[in-house]
Structure formats: C-alpha cells, structure tokens
C-alpha cells in the first residue's frame, strides 16, 4: 500500500503550474491525506523554469522529503532539470519531444510517457490553458483520486468568478485527461491512493495562518508595503479586515509601514506590519523607536534569500541575527519562530498578547518556505484564543491615579499605558531618553534607571514565551537544534537515522529571543554530538547559541545555502559521517 507519494508539476513561469499544483494539493487533502507543498519558482515575469511539488502521506508530515514519484512536465527542460530527483519506479509524463533522446542509464527504472498536453488542449478546446485540467485529470487517474471531489473543487474555483460554462468545460477537460491517462498507462503503473475521511483539517500556508492569527488576536490595523514573500499575509487579511472593523493600509514604503503601525498601536489598535529582507532593513530605525518608546507593535518577517534584493522567490534563514542584534542602541525585543502552520497561527495570537504585556516589539520570524507553501493542519483552535491587553489602563482607573506616569518605574519594568483621548492619561511618547512621564530627560541617574527598567521587562517573560519543544528520544547521542521551516527535514532525518540505528533528539527553538539559555544548555549537555541545522550560509543560529551559552561545547553546524527546501538527506549524510 502506498503511504507516501510526491508529485511534481514542472514547466515555465506562466504555464499554470501554480494553479495545477494548488488544485492537486486540495484534492489530496480532501481525500483525507496529509499534504505538504513546495513551489520552486523564479522571480522573473515569465519563461523561466518553475515547479510545484505536492507531497502527500497517510501519516503526519511536516516537510517535503526528498523523493519525487511522479513528474508531470510541461516541457523537456523540466525533465532534464528534475530527473535526478525522480524515484526508482517513478513515472514521468512529458509534453514535448526529447524524452526519447535521454540516455538509457538516466531513465532506467523510470517510466516515460509522452503526454502532449498542449496540443491536446489546443485541439480539443482551442486554448492551451486547458492543459492544466487535462493534467489534473490524468493525475487523478494515475493516483486513483476521487473524481467527484475534483469536480467539486473545480466548481468552487470557477463558479463564482467565471460561471457555469467554464466549470462545465473544465470538468470535461479533466475527464478527458483521465481517459487519456487510462489509455496510456498500464494498471501496474498506477499508484492508487487509499481514501480516508477528511476530518477537521485545513490546508493552509504559513502566511495565511499568520493572517488568520492576527484577525483572531484582534489585530485591527495592518500597514505594509508589498514585498515577496510577505505580501501573502496582506492578501489573506485584506478581504476580511473590514468585516472586523479594521483597516489595511498600503503605505509608500516600509519606513512608513512600521511607523504607521506604531502610531496605530499608540492610539490603541492591535497593530502589525509584515515584510521581508530589504524591507526589514528599512524598518530598523523604527524598530529601535518601538523599543525605546515602548509601543506594542508586531512585525511579521517572512525571510527570503539575501543579501540586497537577492532572490525574492527563494527561502532562507539569513536574517535571524538582524532582529536579535540589529538596529542601533539596546532595547528589549521578542523574536518568535514558528515551525509549523499551526504554530504560525498560535504564535501570532501569542505575539499580540506578548506585545501588549511587555510593550516591546515582537517579531514573527518565518521563511518563504513556511509562508508560501501549504501544509495540512488541524483546524485552528479558536477556543484557546485569549486576549490579554496587559497594563492598558481603563478610563475609570485613570481618574483615580494621582498623576499618570506612562513610563513609571515599576518592579517588573512594565508601566501602565493610557490611550490618546483618555482623560488624565496625558503623556508624551518619546524617542529621546525621557522621564517617567515621557518628557525628555538626559540626566545620568534617570538614564540608568530607564535603561534598567526597559531591559528588565523581559526578565520574567519566560513563562509567557513558547519554550523550546523537544522531539525524539529521551536519551540519544545525537542532538539537533533548529527552528522554523527546517523542522520537517529534521524530523524525517531523525526517522531515517533511527532506521540506521542512530537515535537522536531535536530541540526546536520556538522563541529565539529572549534566548532560552537554560533549556538549550541542558539539551546540549545531554547530547554527545549536537548539530545546529539551519538554512543559511554562515550558521546564524549556531552563532546565536554560542553567544548565549558559555562555556559551550563544540557544535556541529549543518547549513545550506541552497535555493531549495532543506531535505532530510542533507542532514542524514553529514550526521552519519560525523558519528561513525
């Protein structure tokens, strides 16, 4: 029985690869399977290689794995590019010539079908665009997918926007593709998937989960400037925000975005912005101000490949240290790194509570791989969502106060907050060093106390932060430390290692700052070989750990500067080499 299966759809930007992949993913999910998707696409307008992988499994999966069972290629270039990834007994459907030109060694063990999608679509429906439906039909034959479900998804997709005729033609094209595939393939070439009941699950991307989390957490102000791969948060918010009474503003740039969110937060909204690499660098000054002025603002940063404009459509964990050590001056900050779409939702909710409780900027740090790809998840638990606005004083309370001090020296360093418009709460939010009431004060004694006050705020924050999650065996020689979207690869590497008789544990960092030094130190001390796994060149997470755990034993560092998702293989191999 097939329990795990990967389909890759490959072609050129503009070919409809994305659409086809999305429908397939949804179909598999509705059929009861766990799904993980991966888009590999260029930042170009059109014409360059792109591919979309849909992995599905009967078991819970967090990542892509490192095998492709079926490749559906819109052209031969795609085959050449992806042939090495295709598994033994893999099947390739290819539009275009050239398959025959492949050397036998390369194609051994794989089945090739010439599948002239484009010409079929043109002949039958007069338009190439139907090739995508034909492809989907063919795939549903090979995987023995539920055709009713496919029809249902087609109609959901097109009915509202395009009408019944379009739905009908698309359904027909899918049926046509189904038949074509049946004619072409033998029964042994099929990979029929069992059907399960689709339970209370959703298929969602990290960016969408953050948007949903924001709405759930009461975020009613969102200001941003478009940038890949963070714009999807915006896309997911913009339609629903008005229904919640809130507003989404497109600003002229990222400096305005963060400053505007800060203004909104000061005025009383739960406010947020989102960005990626270049935009994050542009936010550094206002980030510092939020820290100084103690304004509660949430910044979602979906990392893409840098430096500079870099590679806007490729993922990386290359901006980790910037949020922890970046910007000028010293101020408290919280950096959260969700590792699953579920955590994207939960941590966003948590972020809005933390930000108002601790009155310092909170960063939600994810990556393109997390933000733009889809994962199945339990439906998010709305009953667990609680709103805690921290030391926000109510108008009634203000009247009772003998003179409101916005930056009052309190034992925990956190001061009461009033909102403009409230009587008796007048204060100045000040970017210069200031006294308890918010007025500029450059005295030495005040400075020392204010610095202390601000920095002390997070001393007791550990109770509210997401502690590291430890996966795997209680006792194991090999330990992994990672965060964010490498989680899937690490977990599968652990499975593979276990098969190879190497037991391992995995500490998933979920809060990067304040750094959970105790837990990490303890984890490290209980492992013989520790490997920090991260998707960047220089080993930023390892650098962070070393800087916070001292003395610290030597750490292995498995890094990847690849433009593609981290694979289990990239972890298993160096570990085996090191421990054997």
């Amino acid at each position, binding site marked *: 029985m097939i329990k795990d299966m990967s389909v890759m759809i490959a072609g050129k930007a503009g070919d409809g690869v994305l659409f086809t992949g999305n429908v397939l993913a949804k179909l598999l999910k509705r059929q009861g399977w766990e799904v993980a998707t991966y888009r590999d696409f260029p930042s170009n307008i059109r014409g360059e290689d792109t591919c979309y992988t849909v992995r599905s499994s009967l078991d819970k999966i967090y990542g892509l794995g490192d095998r492709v069972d079926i490749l559906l290629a819109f052209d031969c270039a795609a085959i050449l590019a992806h042939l090495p990834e295709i598994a033994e007994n893999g099947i390739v459907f290819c539009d275009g010539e050239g398959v025959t030109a492949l050397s036998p060694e390369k194609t051994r063990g794989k089945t090739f079908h010439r599948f002239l999608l484009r010409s079929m679509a043109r002949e039958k429906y007069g338009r190439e665009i139907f090739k995508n439906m034909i492809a989907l039909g063919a795939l549903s034959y090979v995987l023995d997918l539920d055709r009713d479900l496919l029809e249902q998804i087609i109609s959901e997709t097109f009915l509202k926007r395009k009408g019944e005729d379009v739905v009908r033609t698309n359904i027909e094209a899918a049926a046509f593709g189904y038949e074509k595939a049946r004619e072409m393939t033998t029964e042994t070439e099929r990979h029929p998937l069992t059907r399960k009941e689709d339970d209370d699950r959703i298929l969602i991307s990290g960016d969408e989960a953050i948007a949903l989390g924001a709405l759930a957490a009461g975020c009613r102000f969102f200001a941003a400037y478009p940038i890949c791969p963070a714009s999807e948060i915006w896309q997911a918010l913009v339609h629903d925000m008005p229904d919640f009474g809130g*507003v989404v503003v497109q600003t002229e740039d990222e400096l305005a975005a963060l400053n505007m969110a800060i203004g909104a937060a000061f005025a009383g*909204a739960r406010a947020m912005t989102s960005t990626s690499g270049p935009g994050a660098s542009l936010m550094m000054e206002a980030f510092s101000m939020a820290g100084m002025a103690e304004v509660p603002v949430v910044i979602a940063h979906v990392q893409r490949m840098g430096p500079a404009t870099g590679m806007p459509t490729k993922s990386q964990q290359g901006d980790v240290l910037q949020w922890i050590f970046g910007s000028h001056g010293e101020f408290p900050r919280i950096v959260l790194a969700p590792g699953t779409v579920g955590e994207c939702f939960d941590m966003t909710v948590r972020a809005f509570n933390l930000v108002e409780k601790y009155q310092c900027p909170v960063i939600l740090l994810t990556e393109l791989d997390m933000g733009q790809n889809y994962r199945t998840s339990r439906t998010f638990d709305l009953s667990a969502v609680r709103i805690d606005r921290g030391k926000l004083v109510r108008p009634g309370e203000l009247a009772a106060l003998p003179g409101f001090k916005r930056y009052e020296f309190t034992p925990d360093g956190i001061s009461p907050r009033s909102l403009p418009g*409230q009587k008796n709460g007048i204060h100045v939010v000040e970017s210069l060093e200031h006294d308890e009431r918010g007025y500029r004060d450059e005295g030495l004694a005040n400075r020392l106390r204010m610095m202390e006050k601000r920095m002390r705020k997070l001393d007791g924050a550990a109770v509210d932060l997401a502690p590291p999650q430890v996966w795997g065996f209680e006792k194991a020689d090999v330990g992994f430390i990672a965060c964010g979207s490498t989680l899937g690869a690490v977990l599968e590497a652990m499975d593979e290692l276990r098969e190879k008789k190497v037991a391992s544990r995995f500490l998933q960092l979920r809060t990067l700052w304040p750094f959970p030094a105790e837990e990490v130190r303890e984890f490290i001390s209980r492992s013989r070989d520790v490997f920090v796994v991260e998707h960047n060149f220089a080993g930023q997470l390892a650098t962070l750990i070393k800087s916070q755990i001292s003395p610290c034993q030597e750490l292995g560092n498995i890094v990847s500067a690849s433009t593609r998702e981290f694979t289990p293989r990239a972890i298993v191999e160096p570990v085996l080499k090191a421990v054997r």
Partner: protein
Amino acid sequence: MKEKRGFHLTAPTWCKGCGLFGVFEALKTVAASLDFEPEDLVIVTGIGCHGRINNYFRAYGFHGLHGRAMPVATGIKLVNPRLQVLAVSGDGDAYSIGLGHFLHALRKNVGLTYIVVDNRIFALTQGQASPTTDFGAVTISTPFGSRDFPIDGPALALGAGATFIARGFSGEVTHLASLIERGMKHDGFALIEVLSPCITHNKVNSYDWYRKHIVHVESISDYSPRDKAGAWEALSHPGKIAVGLIYEEGKPSFEDLVLPDRRKPIASLDPGVDRTRLRRIMEGFR
C-alpha cells in the same frame, strides 16, 4: 477648555526670540478657541528644535523619528478619527528626510493638520542648509554657499494635489492662529507652512527680512483660494512669498474613505474573538 493656560505645560527653552514661540502661542490660542480638551489633541512631532514643543504643550504627544511624523500621525488618525491630530515638523523634517511621507499623506488626504515650521535651516544640528535654504546661503554645511535650488512647500503641495494649503508667519501670531484654526477645521489634509526665523543659525531670514518679502494673498484683488490657477500664480513670484490661505478644496478624507465606520473608532473596538466569523474564514481553507 476655553483657556490657553490649560495647554501650557511649561515655558519653552528655545532661544529668546525664536519663531517657534509664535507657533506655540498660535497653537495655544487655536486649541482654546476650538474648545476641545488637551486629551483630545495629539501632537506628533519630528526631530529638530520644533520637536521640543511636546515638552511645553499639554496634550498627548508623540516625538518620534526624524522625518516620520506623517506615518505615525496617519496611524493615530485612522485608529481614532475623533482625535484632533496635529503634526509639527521643521523644514528639514518635512521637506528633506520626510518629503516622501509628507506628499503621500497629503495625496491620501489624511485628516491631519501639518504645521511645517520653516526656518530655512537645520537648527537643532547647529545650522546646516535645509531644502528651503536660499541658493547661495552660507551655512556650516555650505561654507562656499548653498548650491541647491530651494523647494517651495506650498507649490509642491499644489502639484501633489493638496486640499488645503496655507502659509503663515510666526511674526504674525493672530493671523497664523486663524490659518491653523481653519486648517484644523478642514476635513482632510491641511498644510500650514510657517515662516519662522531661527535667530541663532540663520541670520539672513530674520523677522525683518520676512516682513519685507511676504505678500498676503488677501491683499491680492479677486484672490480666491478655490482657484488653482490663481494659487499657482500667487506662488510664482520670485522674491515674493505668498502668505495666507493659498488654496482649499473639498475632497473626501482618507479616514472617511477607508474606515468601515468612522463613528466606531478602532481604538474603542473590543478586540474580542469573533469566533463565528473566524470559523467561517477558516472554512475557506478546507
């Protein structure tokens, strides 16, 4: 609050004779005459001598970053349109580092009153040239004379589609106050540029100098602030600086356009969890 005193927090420590005192006085006058309470007013300032006004004026205040008063003020206004949001910048703050934000808030017609205190110099940093510094002026940053052609704020605003443009002079406090008051009543973005001597770092553009160069548009026969061509013309005389209400037009404000319901400020919403609606959205991901 009908008393100016209610807005006076403490005596400013600007240099004696600084034009900012005129702005301060005018603002207090307007605040008292418009009859709102200090807590209903938020003053968002930039960095510069002008920015110190938060320390002297009793109201909610936000003294943020150099050049970023506009986005901060916009965020405040959108979240609570009931507040009177007043921004104060200098010529450096508004026209140099903050130029882009200024024009974007303006074209969006956000309901802000923007007072740009133009002393033709970067005063707080000890006297470098600003975008309004005269061509040829010697400053510490331009020891051989400035080689930049100055910007005219109101002209720029006109080209950018402003709905309210005024210019006052800190040597004429009553007139200035009347302009600010009108600006505050304007539904949308109101620019009030203030010609304001920096007696310490700019010895050229003094009170006397301004008195010699200003022309009140009220004194131009048939001048109508509703006539764009006329406004353009009034701003086109080299060596003559038009003051007064230069241009005004009616257009919906940004907050009216984008807020679901202006009478339900976001600030007063209960950020409670609307589980039904959220569940419906989540259904879309099945």
